[in-house]
């Protein structure tokens, strides 16, 4: 039914927006290891300080949308992936309060560790959640029927680790836009380096995935679906090459655009391979959806309000356009 497909796309888009926007924030935290001075770290935090909250809200929107549109997915995945999901939230908690508490405190070190570790835990758990979904969640009827550690396997751990260079790449490209001087120089170098790592891990994950999720091979090889699915890796490779070139030419915005395209090529490639399964191999999107009246009610809401949200979110980014300094706005 068209309504269900539209909702599937909307949910996918919400998750994409979250992953890219908060991926930048989480990636900035990952970079703390490479920017050690307090003042540099203040600059890094201030590049995301005015927008991180709105970025994280896309996660809540995605969660709410999945709950409202595909409640069986919400219920089953939350139960089946209980441990990585709650670990993810725990990481977000520490990452979130670190902004405020670091700003208030004189001994910043402790909260910088909280910022870094919280973000790291969040990123790893995100990946393991995704890996857990791809490796299958046991269901009986419309309920979760597996064990508490089903999601934990080498593949899901690999996915968790694989996301780190992805976010580092996004964050460093974002820093190129928002900073100057030596921070920007290092950001350029990190963007270039992490792109190669991203390509490598994407290749590993791609090769590894069919072992856990054999169904995907039919999606990758059967025409006409294959033509669609294979555009993503091609797009990714092109984006990687363009990113490299734009870094060499010291362009400001191009690296970020390329990084986003590269990241999305992997992410959308996975989503496109999943369809029409909501939770492979147990349940399809059709079977997991809410009733049509609810889908319509929530869809109308999205159609009317989401453009507004995107507009004022864009406006907020525009207000804080330009380079970030150490002083002035933001946390000290």
């Amino acid at each position, binding site marked *: 039914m068209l309504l269900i497909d539209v909702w599937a796309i909307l949910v996918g888009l919400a998750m994409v927006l979250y992953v890219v926007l908060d991926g930048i924030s989480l990636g900035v935290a990952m970079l703390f290891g490479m920017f050690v001075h307090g003042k540099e770290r203040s600059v890094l935090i201030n590049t995301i300080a005015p927008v991180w909250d709105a970025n994280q809200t896309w996660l809540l929107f995605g969660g709410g949308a999945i709950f*409202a549109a595909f409640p069986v997915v919400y219920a089953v995945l939350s139960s089946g992936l*209980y441990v990585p999901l709650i670990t993810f939230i725990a990481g977000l908690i520490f990452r979130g309060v670190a902004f405020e508490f670091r700003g208030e405190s004189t001994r910043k070190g402790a909260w910088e560790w909280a910022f870094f570790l919280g973000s790291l835990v969040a990123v790893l758990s995100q990946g393991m959640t995704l890996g857990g979904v791809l490796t299958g969640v046991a269901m009986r009827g419309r309920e*979760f029927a597996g064990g508490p550690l089903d999601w934990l396997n080498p593949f899901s751990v690999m996915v968790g680790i694989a996301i780190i260079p992805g976010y580092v790449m996004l964050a460093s490209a974002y820093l190129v836009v928002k900073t100057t001087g030596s921070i920007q120089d290092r950001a350029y170098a990190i963007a270039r380096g992490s792109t190669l790592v991203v390509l490598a891990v994407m290749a590993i994950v791609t090769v590894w995935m069919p072992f856990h999720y054999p169904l995907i091979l039919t999606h990758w090889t059967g025409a006409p679906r294959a033509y669609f699915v294979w555009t993503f890796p091609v797009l990714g490779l092109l984006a990687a090459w363009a990113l490299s070139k734009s870094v060499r030419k010291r362009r400001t915005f191009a690296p970020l655009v390329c990084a986003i395209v590269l990241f999305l090529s992997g992410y959308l490639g996975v989503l496109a391979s999943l369809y029409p399964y909501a939770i492979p191999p147990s349940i399809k999107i059709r079977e997991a959806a809410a009733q049509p009246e609810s889908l319509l009610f929530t869809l109308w*809401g999205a159609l009317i309000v989401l453009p507004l949200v995107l507009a004022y979110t864009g406006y907020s980014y525009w207000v804080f356009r330009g380079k970030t300094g150490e002083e002035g706005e933001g946390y000290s």
Partner: protein
Amino acid sequence: MNVLSDPLLLSRLQFAVTIMFHIIFPTATIGLGLYLVIIEILWLSTKDELYYRMCRFWGRVFAINFGVGVVSGVVMEFEFGTNWARFSALGANVFAPLLYFEVLTAFFLEAGFLGIMLFGWMRVSRSIHFLSTCLVAGGSILSALWIVAANSWMQTPAGFRLEGGQFVAAGFRAVIFNPSTLVRFSHMVAAAFETSAFAVAGIGAFFLLKGRNVAFFRRSMGVALVSAALFAPLQLYLGDASGRQVFHLQPVKLAAMEGLWETNTASGAPFALVGLPDADKERNAFEISIPSALSLLVTHTLSGRVPGLKAFPRQDRPNVAVLFTSFRLMVAIGFLFLFVMIWAAVLWKRKRLFTQRAFLWTLAVIQVFGWVAVEMGWVTAEVGRQPWLVYGVMRTSEAVSPIRPGNVVWSLALFVIIFFSIGASYVYYVLRAFWRGPDMASPIPHVQRRAGLRILEDSPAPPADA
């Protein structure tokens, strides 16, 4: 029954812990949000620099509070799925859209304009900044509406039918504006305004007593007391309206709240001031009560019939001891706040509002009770709904996720540790921010000064607007 092996009890405990931690922060967000709007209006209209400093200082407090509120809120969004998956799957058609709309229409608004409100003083015009403050404050109130609507639907369900155990929506207007939404929403928002007003006033009073940043905190306290004067009496009226709503729609909850065992037949039902409910023996072991007062309160007649707990089957009764205590505590605090405001009015007439030390000490001490009242109110509402998850339709025991109890032991322990450390840090940093006091020295952004500036007053006499 061993707690550690019962996923139902563990999940209930976990939800209680997470929500009782979380609710503190939206309460402050809603209350401080209004406060920030008021003081920014005062800044824009009087151009008095002290108001600008108040905007920046209390804005900082708001930011710390908002941060903790957001992260504890992320837990709530997913906890329906992690621990109450059966309810989520069965009830989502009706319930989930409300949470979805909360994020879409309210939370995005708050989060979206928070950055400008906190960090955009230099970057946007005075009007845009003020608009941002209003949207953040408005967003928090709209948030409360959706969340209270969702919770109210669980208390007084409407607008649905059941198809083989699955909830199916039959008109979302009835779902959202179910019989108790508006009363409970007003009661909660007034609670947020009142609690925050007393909190700001209490903090101000403390620093007046210590003689630190006196002019600043006197002004802060003054504005807060005006708000408190408005909401303390209003809240008693709204609380009464809420209670009568419970009487009509959730009579067993009312009976438990009031420790009423026997349905009155001849005369009016008594109102118990204090008592010791005994659930096994179905009576109060000890009781001091006012005859006919309960009938008067809920039916507005001296002999109106009020069903007692014995009129309901045992398995449908909530925990009387908890409810009786929590409800009485909340009401007592509400009355205490009202009496303090009457005292404040008397002192203001005598021009001793900011100097009477007993009053200032009272304010400083009682502000904690506001938060206690909020928690007790929610305990009354939620424990009172038991054993139902959706009152009269779905029991809590039918709603729990099909997961191992070990999962919940782990997550409960994790949340307790996390919230304890975050809570302690929060208190530490907020108290330190208060002690350090406002930044009076940083230059005021040019765009905010463009309309002119009045020099900071330092006269010891109370300002005319206090």
